[in-house]
């Protein structure tokens, strides 16, 4: 038996979890069939786009977007109680609606700008949990879902973590990176991982607000910190100026060579510290070109993240790859090519010789 396809995934999951044996088997089969159909639909759409055929966006809700309330619990209580799924009316709880709407906006960005279906490119369902812990001052990606605390614990303004579209897009982009370059989360590759999250975090926010590169504040999490601490989590254009004690370097002369160890002061070799350098390279390139950054340099960074970098890529590799992709996309010596090169020059990163494209890992050694 296959259950009626109009049954919402949440109901199917509940039946699969708690129903009678026959209901459970039927629910599981329905979920499997839905997954196969979705996979085919996405593959066909991608093939058509590759042939230059205009494909209308999938209907909203193809990637299920579900918000749970973990009600003050922590890891063992995730995801929590389901409070909003597709087709449900808005909740009375602002955090629920913000997590839902901002996840939807982020997935819409990836679909409409980059023809990418959700986090994994294959329509992965979105799961968000709100109200994690008590006055918890953090938002994070578990590898499978987004989790948001309420803030108000001394670092974040209460409610700011779900209110900030760029913070939510930052977390979801950690998922995109996980399914693509899978940049190792330490030292320079980790700082690139963080930087790609900030780059797409700000691009999602800029596009949603119709903000061009010249008028953007290039701040991540503007207004999210307690005002006594500062104005934002990071400044992409002026790293090191977002809050009191912000120690992000603005170029390689101030690079922080921290050990990769378990000391919380060292931030896995400075992943949230040195990310200021590639962040600024992007912002400088975008500002040089003007216009909408999601239409100019954004696609270059997207191609590099999803196709060109190996997991242990360094800043110089990212520089070489973005310069090469800008030349491929816009022409050798084009304004865009020069602007991307100029961005890396500004932060004093010399590109790896060649195009930086580390595709050797996908090639088999020549046996001869």
């Amino acid at each position, binding site marked *: 038996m296959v259950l009626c396809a109009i049954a919402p995934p949440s109901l199917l999951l509940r039946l699969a979890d708690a129903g009678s044996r026959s209901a459970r088997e039927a629910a599981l089969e329905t979920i499997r069939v839905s997954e196969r159909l979705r996979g085919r639909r996405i593959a066909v759409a991608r093939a058509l786009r590759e042939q230059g055929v205009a494909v209308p966006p999938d209907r909203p809700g193809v990637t299920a977007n579900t918000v749970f309330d973990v009600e003050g619990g*922590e*890891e063992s209580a995730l995801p929590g109680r389901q409070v909003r799924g597709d087709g449900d009316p808005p909740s009375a709880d602002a955090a629920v609606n913000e997590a839902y709407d901002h996840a939807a906006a982020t997935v819409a960005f990836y679909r409409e700008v980059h023809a990418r279906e959700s986090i994994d490119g294959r329509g992965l369902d979105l799961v968000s949990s709100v109200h994690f812990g*008590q*006055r918890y*001052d*953090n*938002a*994070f*990606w*578990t*590898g*499978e879902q987004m989790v948001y605390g309420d803030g108000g*614990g*001394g*670092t*974040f303004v209460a409610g700011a*973590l779900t209110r900030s579209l760029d*913070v939510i897009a*930052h*977390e979801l982009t*950690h998922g995109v990176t*996980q399914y693509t370059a899978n940049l190792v*989360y330490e030292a320079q590759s980790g700082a690139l*991982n*963080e930087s790609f*999250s900030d780059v797409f975090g700000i691009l999602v926010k800029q596009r949603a607000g119709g903000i061009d590169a010249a008028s953007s504040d290039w701040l991540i*999490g503007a207004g999210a*910190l307690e005002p006594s*601490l500062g104005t934002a*989590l*990071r400044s992409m254009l002026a790293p090191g100026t977002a*809050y*009191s*004690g912000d*120690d992000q370097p603005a170029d390689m002369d101030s690079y922080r060579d921290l050990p990769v160890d*378990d*000391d*919380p*002061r*060292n*931030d*896995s070799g400075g*992943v*949230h*510290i040195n990310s200021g350098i590639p962040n600024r390279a992007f912002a400088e390139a975008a500002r040089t070109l003007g216009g909408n950054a999601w239409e100019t340099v954004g696609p270059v960074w997207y191609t590099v993240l999803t196709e060109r970098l190996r997991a242990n890529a360094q800043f110089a590799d990212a520089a070489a790859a973005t310069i090469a992709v800008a030349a491929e996309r816009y022409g050798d010596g084009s304004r865009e090519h020069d602007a991307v090169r100029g961005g890396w020059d500004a932060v004093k990163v010399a590109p790896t010789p060649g195009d930086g494209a580390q595709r050797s890992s996908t090639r088999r050694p020549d046996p001869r």
Partner: protein
Amino acid sequence: MRVTVVRGGGVAGMVVTTTVDAVDLDAARTDELRALVAGCSFRERSGPVAPAMRDGFTYEVTVDDDDGSSRGVRFVQGTAPEGMGELLRWVDECPSGRREPGR
């Protein structure tokens, strides 16, 4: 007894150090703190629990005892040794805890 919690990472990437010293606590609160510390393991859990987690917190907890001895442990969010989660929450909520931002 003094308990020092260094918290790093998170989406903000900030370091916050919180210190609670028993000399600043009344007798009842001191007893609470001692009981919580007595219930804590200082042995790291083995094996990666959530290797794909991004922007999680990392912690260093140090307990300096009155006899001059010291115990400490480091762990990432979600892998707190036994009893440590409760101690972290108590320290976070303690009105006489001193919080200092900075690496």
